[in-house]
């Protein structure tokens, strides 16, 4: 009973971070801040959701279920490695190409 509750809380936390990332992509003013929201939100939420699914597998700890949980944790590990790297590569590419950063004064020009 307690294990499904833990996994539900973890998955709900992950979905919350996903919503944060999606709102950030839509609402933030420029490329850098949007990538910031997408990179951080997606990494954290994928990690939390994978952890929740792995915990759910462990409520019946037979070797087969433990193997599935290990595979899910491996996926989480690789997402933790690749997602920040791709965010870094995209932002660096934008920076090298001379994309302008958003300043507070831009807000007046827009509106």
């Amino acid at each position, binding site marked *: 009973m307690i294990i499904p509750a833990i996994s539900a809380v973890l998955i709900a936390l992950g979905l919350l971070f996903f919503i944060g990332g999606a709102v950030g992509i839509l609402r933030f003013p420029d490329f850098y801040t949007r990538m910031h929201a997408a990179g951080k939100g997606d990494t954290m939420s994928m990690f939390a959701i994978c952890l929740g699914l792995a915990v759910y597998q462990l409520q019946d700890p037979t070797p087969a279920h433990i193997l599935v949980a290990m595979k899910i944790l491996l996926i989480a590990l*690789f997402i933790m*490695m*690749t997602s920040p*790297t791709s965010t*870094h*590569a995209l932002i*660096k590419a934008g920076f*090298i*190409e001379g994309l302008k950063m958003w300043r507070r004064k831009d807000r007046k020009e827009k509106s």
Partner: protein
Amino acid sequence: MKALGLIAVLGTGLLLLAASRDFPNWGDPSSPASSYRLSRHFITQTINETAVPNMVTAVLADYRGYDTLFEAVVIFTAGIAVIGILRRYGNRDFIPAGGEVHLTPKQPDLIVESTVRLLIPVIQIFALYVIAHGHHSPGGGFQGGVIFGASFILLALARDLRTAQNWVAEKRMLILACCGILIYAGIGVLCQLLGENFLDYQILHRILPTDPVMARYHSILGVEIGVAFTVTAIMFSIYSNLSSNGQMKEGI
């Protein structure tokens, strides 16, 4: 005009929804697809005839081996066509509609390179696992080949095309692609030489130290390896040709 389009879309959608009610339910044992005797044969006899637990792999590589052979040939032909077109016409100066695009030359990046260095061996081992484990779980030559090709594409994206070309030269990749098709068709011809139909693997027990059932099992693995060779090589050569306009020099 817009209203007319909306009415047409809504009408088609409603018709499709109405028609979807006539579909059999998921996994319905009395639906035509499940009750036809061919399906019953595959479901009950696959494990006895080929010793492969994954029915999809057995059907793909054994029962309809012809189809899969020419699927691999289609991929091969696509790769050859891309190379043929881009080598002939790709070296003309290509100027996009909005004027010429100047890309800043690529700079080495420590973070990206370290991550890629960590990831590529894992990706390649996983690709081999997918190829070899196709008998027991979803996977096989096409999927594993795509994963293996993606590892080379990742290298070309993270460093540059020249580095990837130093690892696996274009010429060697194309030889690998031809080898894949030759392995697949060669297994088929071998069956013919031993006096059976093309791609009828069970006769191979005369040269393999196994019984006819296990001969089919092992031949499926051989065929998957051939498919994986072709898909890996063609994936990478399509990427490297498209990204460098057939020049194999700069690229993205």
